[in-house]
């Protein structure tokens, strides 16, 4: 029986209650709901971001599969729209030169991978210490340090809500293991969606609200096995794939409630304890898809609505 663990990312826009932190913040904060308790919880964990054996081991192991999903979707769409020639010329470097936004970057686990694959990456997080840790970690890597120097990699302490008020839009917006920690998912999703260029991609990963998810993620992973720190997840905040589909249907990104493969896709992700690794659930496994952890891809229509 597999344990499905949702490692966590930190995110969260919004207001820091700490006065000391406030002194150093110059931007204005989003208006959506704040969850100071969650921010405090993750700030405590921040030192462990890059300990691959620690709290975030599960997340480190999950990361390659998330990157696979991002690459696969970009390649699939590119192949369909630009043809074989495009695919041959791009080879494996489908992200090269694209403007990519990582919302809720945490310690920068996904961000660093996206940057290595050639994306021009902006990574934001609502926890200032996360941003500090992510920046320091990238600066210690000569390749990423030069990306930072020439502007191909930037970390900012801000929220998607604040960013959405700026003019810049992105080819790809990623927000992994974030939405389940947000108090107002609809506002959060709307700001992420806003940041995607027409014809661009939005990719999320999260945990669905099923009894299995409760069992594996909260009961086993947090309470019993202590694989992730207790308090990491709140069951009520888990979001089901159908709710995401429904949201983007109402936003006008998806024409019908049953989205076509070109509009949106949901892929389950399972942890296989005997392999010590995650795996993407193969396509066509409808029933088991998204029982707990899943990835969600949706495409913004090329013509604005």
């Amino acid at each position, binding site marked *: 029986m597999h344990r499905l663990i949702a490692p966590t990312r930190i995110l969260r826009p919004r207001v820091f209650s700490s006065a000391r932190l406030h002194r*150093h913040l110059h931007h204005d904060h989003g208006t959506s709901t704040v969850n100071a308790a969650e921010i405090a919880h993750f700030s405590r964990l921040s030192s462990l971001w890059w300990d*691959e054996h620690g709290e975030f081991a599960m997340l*480190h*192991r999950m990361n390659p599969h998330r990157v696979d999903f991002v690459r696969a979707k970009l390649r699939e769409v590119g192949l369909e729209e630009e043809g074989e020639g495009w695919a041959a010329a791009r080879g494996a470097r489908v992200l090269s030169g694209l403007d990519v936004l990582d919302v809720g970057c945490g310690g920068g686990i996904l961000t660093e991978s996206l940057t290595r694959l050639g994306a021009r990456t902006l990574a934001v997080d609502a926890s200032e*210490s996360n941003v500090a840790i992510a*920046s320091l970690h990238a600066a210690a890597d000569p390749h990423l340090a*030069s990306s930072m120097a020439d502007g191909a990699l*930037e970390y900012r302490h801000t929220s998607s809500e604040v960013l959405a008020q700026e003019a810049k839009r992105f080819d790809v917006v990623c927000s992994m293991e974030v939405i389940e920690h947000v108090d107002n998912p609809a506002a959060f999703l709307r700001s992420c969606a806003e940041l995607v260029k027409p014809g661009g991609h939005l990719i999320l990963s999260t945990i669905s609200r099923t009894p299995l998810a409760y069992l594996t993620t909260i009961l086993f992973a947090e309470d019993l096995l202590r694989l992730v720190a207790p308090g990491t997840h709140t069951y009520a905040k888990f979001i089901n794939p159908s709710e995401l589909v429904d949201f983007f249907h109402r936003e006008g990104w998806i024409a019908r409630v049953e989205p076509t493969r070109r509009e949106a896709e949901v892929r389950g992700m399972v942890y296989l304890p005997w392999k010590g690794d995650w795996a993407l659930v193969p396509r066509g496994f409808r029933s088991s898809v998204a029982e707990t952890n899943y990835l969600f891809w949706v495409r913004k229509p090329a013509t604005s609505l």
Partner: protein
Amino acid sequence: MSLKRVASGSTSRVLKQTRLLPSRIHRYYSTPTSSNAPEDSDVVIVGGGPAGLALASALGSSDAVKQNLKITLVEFGDLEKVRGWNMPSDAFSNRVSSLTNVSQNFLEEIGAWDLVDEGRTCGLEEMKVWDGISDARIDFNAATLGLGSSMTAGNQMARLTENLNLQRGLLRHLDQHTNVSLLDNTKVDSIHHDGNDADGWPAVHLSNGKVLRARLLVGADGFNSPVRSYAGIESYGWNYPTHAIVATLQHAPRSLQPNTTAYQRFLPTGPIAFLPLSPTASSLVWSTRPALAAALKQTDPLVLVRMINAAFRLPEVSLRYLHDRILEASTAGAPLTPSEITDEIAWRERAHDIHEYSAYASASVDPVSVNIGIPPEGAELLPPLVENIQPGTVASFPLRFNHAEAYVGEGRGARTVLVGDAAHTIHPLAGQGLNLGLGDAECLARCITGAVQRGGDIGSHTALLPYARERYFENHKMMSAVDKLHKLYASTAPPVVWARSVGVEVLNELDALKAGVMASAGAGPGPGRGDASWGMAASGVEALVGGARVVTAVRDGVRAVGVGALQQLAQSLAGRSR
């Protein structure tokens, strides 16, 4: 560590550093300009032996790696000598390995096999293995077992290849790939942790004064691995009370069959193996007591020739007597002459009723005329009679069992990984040493390529974990099978001899089981791991030898060995004898 300090330490410091980002911080890490300042390399491979060269070759041939990584290989020795290695077509180096079909397919896939001189290699079509005491036999035949590789028209279970031929091919292959720089005649003097936190990179200090900072440091640096010491990885093991004698053997071509069969006889002192290289040359690997190995190395080569022929033919009790004679004479400072040893052997043959027309006669006959004349009955059960030893090819080396406790370094030893003999040293009786190293190289190259394609940090534990998972257990299985086999055959106790003989003879009758056994040992056609047939074969053999196991357990100390080793026996013998 400082990362943690930043995170858990004073908030004000965190914030201060945040404000510095990214421009100020970048300066500390930008590429230094002074000449002996560290130079960054994504992969630094220490060691240009077969494992290191194969890894560099595999990385050099991967497009993803080529576009993204800078690779440096450091070797103490002179690789120019390997590149320029040349031998007449009828002479052979004494370091020969039996490459499994899986190893060959890997070399073919990376494009290196084309650059190995295949004319100097020899496909192994058959193996004959027997018990030194009971004479119980097991035969592996590639044709009847349906084995073969994609690159050979015929059937082969392995291919005997000189190590230098392989290394030269790998170097020629590397010459085509510019993202790999080779630094030979260069020693790694020391390795230090760069920086004072867990995130620091290994800094490799070279004898030419240069310092290389490695994103990933690969220890392909052999048994005494400096990388393993730096990484703080313990290894455990022991020396066998055994040395291996190697030599290139010369003999007349056989009249009725090609020289494509390997022979291995398990003597209580260790196995003696005969590996075909050409119609008139073969390679010897004879594992025996260190004192005997030393004495044999010093005798007249013709004495060694006589002893090799006898070792495949005489009953074990007579071999023991001959070994004592050699040792006595050598200790007395009056080594036996060729004619003395010939007389001794002839005398033993008469004592055992071995007549000169018997295939088991070696001293009382002229080897040349036996090899090229009409062979006596049963000659195919034995290797051809050796006539000479190629001058300068007799050497011996100690045998040991050693396995690192981990393949990937952690903590302050992070960003390190071990391949080949640096990770494991194995008894050569099953010919797995080099194949394990090539398997490591294949797997690590695949793992690094995968990490690059997914934007991973190739030095991170996450990127290296699949390598450790895949190889550690694989290697451990093979190593302990070979070790058990060595111990099982070192016994002369009747119940053990009986049990292992029955097991082997029963196994010998079942081609399907043998095919499964061979496939799982790398002789199968493809690089398919975990062949399903093995499961079947294993349980079949398990059931068959179940009875024998009871007998084995009779003797204390042998219990640990178990007849389960018989199942592994065949597996480890498959396709190699070294």
